[in-house]
């Protein structure tokens, strides 16, 4: 039975992830006063890449990179329950808690670093270096906020944290939410923290040497991972969800906020992004942690 549950979770995350990606491109186009592509454009792109021929070869580790990234995204998804009540769409959440998810969040980027490193493309190596440098700074405020929430709820179980909120954690502990949100914008690969794949600087960075089916795999994992991270944020700060309508509404509002930031702001340089993340959101998170534990 759990296999069916997991498969359904995967299908929902894939479909909703690509829908959100299509909406992201369409809404960004409206921000730029364009008509924009149809909402299923990202899905069409990924399917087209599955039909392309492979002509490059850099050894097996290169091709394992996207596979590790895909497994990281899928495992993250499986450990996050979609709903706080009921038995369906719970995945593997009874076997792991928030610590497992925090660990799995970085599995994908690290696996991809191994793969891209063997590719030989200088832009790939530059993108990975930028990405990992940013990761250190990005994780610090996010981890402080998440650990604060866990200790305040007295539990590391995602569903418990979500269902125990009488007022949403976002409003009860606004400083922690703001700190986690700034990190989250970076995690979603949005401006001003989109340094690893900066289009005109490092030519899509880690993805620059991938073509055809492996690029399609990267796009699919990105869609699934996006949805998983949105659900995680909804559970930690917005009180979780008890049905699909609530889940989609909350994740979509969160998503709109993130892409609005992405559409408005320009890009930091890598040192600027690290400086900013280590100074501003980390300070906010520490102050939020002190205030929350004192009161």
């Amino acid at each position, binding site marked *: 039975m759990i296999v069916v549950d997991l498969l359904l979770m995967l299908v929902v995350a894939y479909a909703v992830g690509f829908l959100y990606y299509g909406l992201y491109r369409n809404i960004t186009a409206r921000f730029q006063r364009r008509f924009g592509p149809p909402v299923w454009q990202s899905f069409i*792109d990924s399917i087209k890449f599955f039909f392309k021929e492979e002509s*490059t070869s850099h050894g097996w580790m290169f091709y394992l990179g996207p596979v590790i990234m895909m497994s990281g995204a899928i495992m993250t998804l499986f450990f996050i329950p979609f709903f706080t009540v009921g038995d369906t769409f719970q995945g593997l959440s009874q076997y792991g808690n928030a610590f497992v998810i925090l660990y799995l969040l970085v599995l994908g980027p690290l696996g991809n670093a191994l793969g891209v490193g063997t590719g030989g493309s200088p832009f790939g190596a530059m993108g990975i270096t930028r990405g990992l440098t940013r990761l250190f700074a990005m994780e610090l405020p996010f981890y402080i906020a998440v650990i604060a929430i866990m200790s305040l709820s007295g539990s590391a179980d995602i569903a418990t944290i979500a269902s125990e909120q009488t007022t949403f954690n976002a409003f009860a502990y606004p400083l922690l939410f703001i700190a986690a949100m700034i990190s989250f914008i970076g995690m979603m690969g949005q401006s001003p923290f989109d340094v690893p794949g900066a289009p005109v600087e490092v030519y899509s960075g880690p993805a620059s040497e991938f073509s055809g089916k492996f690029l399609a795999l990267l796009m699919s994992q990105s869609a699934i991972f996006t949805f998983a991270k949105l659900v995680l944020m909804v559970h930690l700060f917005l009180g979780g969800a008890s049905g699909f309508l609530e889940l989609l509404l909350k994740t979509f509002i969160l998503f709109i906020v993130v892409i609005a930031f992405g559409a408005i702001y320009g890009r930091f340089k890598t040192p600027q992004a690290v400086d900013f993340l280590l100074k501003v959101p980390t300070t906010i998170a520490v102050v939020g942690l002190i205030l929350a534990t004192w009161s």
Partner: protein
Amino acid sequence: MEHNGFIQEQKTLEGDLNSDTSHKNSVDFLMNWFRKRSIFVLAYGTGCGAIEMPPTFTSRYDAERLGIRGAATPRQADVIIVSGYCSYKTLRRIIRTYEQMSNPKYVLALGSCTVNGGMYWDSYNTIKKLEDYMPVDMYVNGCMPRPESILEGFIALQKEIGEGKASSWQKYEENYEFYRKNQEAVLGKKVEPSYDADWYLYDGGL
């Protein structure tokens, strides 16, 4: 609605696209449909045509509404745009870039310079016909073609892809000797561009 004219324009552009019926079976049809609706473009900006591409892809003409968007690297691209005259030095890079793209790949050539040399017909260091050195799927002529013409060229190319007729990449593989002979005639035995330090150490420049 203020967007009405825009939607009408898009319908006119796409009306031609959806009319093709010449496909062998449903798998071919689906594959070609996905290929024509999603085109990643590597805009190789050579010559004056480079200036016509930014308006094509940004807010004013917005090629993304037809599924056409820029690609960052040759590995991810489906279409390479050669946007004007090619000097011998540029031709090396274009051929190298084209060969790095993965199949199926298409070539869109802009401007009279790629058709017959254009105003550079008697130049000592530009090629006259691009088709002698690499296959071309679609020409957009003009000096220079405006973004509207480029979009029409894209629509025509999408139509050919949908019908499965755009197959220049197969032509390049089948007639490689012909193309290689022409390339060597103007570029010498070593067609590939030199990188790093070897251009001033071994090749005598260029």
